[in-house]
């Protein structure tokens, strides 16, 4: 290698710092907040971290908006800055700001955050009790969160396989940790983190292996290079097919599509609810962005090869998501299966493409935004329904909540209706956009299956609503905690977005349509 380095004239790469500024801001502040974590006295950490996180995300959002209209390959072709990227950046940043609000919530659990007092103290030990008694907080959550957000921003913007893999790792590793940091039910939380880590590591390995095969096929890792190789080479499909399948495994795992969904219910249930909300919204958005870019830009010419595979995955995902959700008795698990089902709907939009990808892309962008707001809101409501042992997530505890706390129950009902895709909610517009795009793309059998799955799914959403409003509340049921302004804002934004996108989807639909161009 030395010889190669010496042999070639070294040319400094150019990096368009202004164009990748949102990434730099988020990563830079993440590093600053690590330093703050190391050197600030304990009592200053929480306020500093909240201000840093919110400030950096807001700044990145402002810069992203300012970049509107950019269309270029930055950093020597490693990062694609186009409408698609910017739309996803905007969505991810807005969702992360809402998630930070949930992370920072202290009012619902007696004045401390929902994260472990001291993550290193073993559950049930004297050290843990002491940390609890001293009211410690693990404020490392915030830098970890920022690193995850940075990875998520890079993931859909990555324009070569290596950058995509780095982004995948940068977003995954902090999430593994965050999943294990719950203050209550720590064993469950740690189990979730362990499962997520082990399965995630497998998925990353699959992705890496697929990457190697695609590189072997094309001789390059850049997406445009792979696309060109697919056009030029014929007859050496083995590597291409195997590579495509393996990278698909890696990405479908992050999306939570069947049969790679096994981690979802356990992790969603065990992780701190604020983190679950963040994962359900932002990871899904980032991973779908990466999936679209990789498969449309790099592997678009080989569409006939991978479409059948994604068809099967989409059908399986819909089936698993909507049928297994019926049998769940825990609200977080139910929402997890619901997120699997939604991955299925999104996959319908993704795979039902014939000539032009723009209709499908814009439909998926809209769906992701609509689903993200609703899902963060729904999980935020879950954090509020509590009893002495923390969140009361078992469905039997939610019986009669409508009588006890009509506002919270109505808000939850609204989100569930949006998930179900009832007209006048954002979920309906999202489904409508995705199904119509897929129908035009010729995937009508999938659309039919999707509609059936929606009906099945509607059943379990409605079941919860019935439970909340048409049953007598149990004695000694859970109480609804009064949140601080943080969670209130998060829920309010979710409600507003769900209603507004349901009634007036036009502006966002148009934005998504304009954003639906990928540079290659």
């Amino acid at each position, binding site marked *: *290698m*030395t010889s190669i*380095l*010496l042999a070639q004239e*070294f040319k*400094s790469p150019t990096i368009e710092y202004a164009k990748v500024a949102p990434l730099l801001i988020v990563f830079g502040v993440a*590093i600053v907040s*690590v*330093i703050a974590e*190391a050197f600030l006295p304990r009592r200053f950490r929480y306020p500093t971290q909240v201000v840093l996180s919110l400030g950096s995300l807001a700044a990145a959002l402002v810069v992203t908006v300012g970049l509107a209209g950019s269309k270029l390959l930055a950093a020597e072709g490693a990062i694609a800055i186009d409408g698609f990227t910017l739309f996803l950046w905007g969505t991810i940043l807005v969702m992360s700001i809402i998630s930070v609000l949930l992370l920072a919530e202290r009012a619902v659990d007696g004045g401390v955050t929902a994260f472990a007092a001291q993550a290193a103290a073993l559950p049930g030990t004297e050290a843990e009790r002491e940390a609890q008694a001293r009211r410690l907080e693990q404020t490392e959550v915030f830098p970890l969160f920022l690193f995850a957000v940075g990875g998520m921003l890079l993931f859909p913007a990555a324009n070569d396989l290596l950058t995509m893999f780095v982004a995948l790792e940068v977003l995954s590793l902090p999430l593994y940790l965050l999943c294990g940091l719950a203050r209550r039910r720590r064993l469950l939380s740690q189990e979730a983190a362990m499962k997520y880590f082990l399965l995630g590591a497998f998925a990353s390995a699959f992705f890496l292996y697929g990457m190697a095969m695609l590189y072997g096929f094309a001789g390059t890792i850049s997406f445009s290079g792979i696309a060109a190789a697919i056009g030029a080479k014929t007859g050496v499909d083995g590597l291409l097919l195997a590579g495509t399948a393996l990278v698909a495994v890696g990405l479908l795992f992050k999306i939570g599509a069947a049969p790679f969904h096994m981690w979802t219910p356990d992790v969603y249930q065990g992780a701190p609810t604020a983190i679950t909300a963040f994962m359900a919204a932002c990871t899904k958005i980032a991973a779908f962005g990466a999936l679209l870019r990789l498969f449309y830009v790099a592997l678009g010419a080989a569409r006939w090869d991978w479409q059948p595979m994604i068809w099967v995955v989409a059908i399986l995902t819909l089936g698993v998501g909507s049928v297994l959700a019926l049998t769940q008795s825990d609200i977080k698990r139910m929402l997890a299966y619901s997120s699997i089902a939604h991955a299925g709907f999104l996959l319908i939009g993704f795979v039902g493409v014939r000539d032009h990808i723009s209709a499908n892309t814009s439909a998926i962008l809209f769906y992701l935004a609509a689903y993200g707001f609703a899902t963060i809101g729904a999980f935020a409501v879950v954090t509020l329904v509590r009893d002495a042992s923390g969140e009361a997530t078992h469905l039997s505890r939610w019986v009669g909540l409508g009588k006890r706390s009509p506002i919270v129950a109505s808000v939850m009902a609204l989100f569930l209706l949006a998930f179900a895709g009832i007209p006048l909610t954002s979920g309906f517009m999202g489904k409508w956009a995705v199904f119509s795009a897929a129908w035009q793309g010729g995937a009508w059998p999938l659309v039919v299956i999707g509609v059936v799955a929606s009906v099945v799914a509607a059943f379990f959403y409605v079941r919860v609503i019935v439970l909340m409003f048409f049953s007598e509340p149990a004695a000694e049921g859970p109480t609804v905690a009064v949140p601080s302004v943080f969670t209130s804002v998060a829920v309010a934004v979710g409600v507003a977005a769900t209603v507004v996108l349901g009634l007036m989807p036009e502006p966002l639909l148009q934005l998504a349509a304009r954003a639906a161009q990928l540079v290659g």
Partner: protein
Amino acid sequence: MNLYVPILVLLLLGGGFAVVSAVAGSLMGPKRWNRAKVDSYECGIEPTPQPAGGGRFPVKYYITAMLFIIFDIEIIFLFPWAVAFDQMALFGLVEMVLFIVTVFVAYAYVWRRGGLEWD
């Protein structure tokens, strides 16, 4: 790969010497069995029973190992950079200083959190 052949030769010679002497040692020495002799040596006291498979190590060894991996990889990045440094000039310097500063932040964090304390 002619450059590597001599290394193989030396490996064979060195390894061969080690194997031969290990075998020769067990052949040449006397063999007088004695129950106490084959016990684990613990200065005369009853040997501590060892758990099958090695048991658990104190967690600080793992921390050291993880820190080592981080820093060793950092150094591996520094080597080719140092070799090609004269061609990259200021660009290489700025990029690598950024990289080192980033790693240093993690180092400072570990230090402050007591990851480098041994007692």
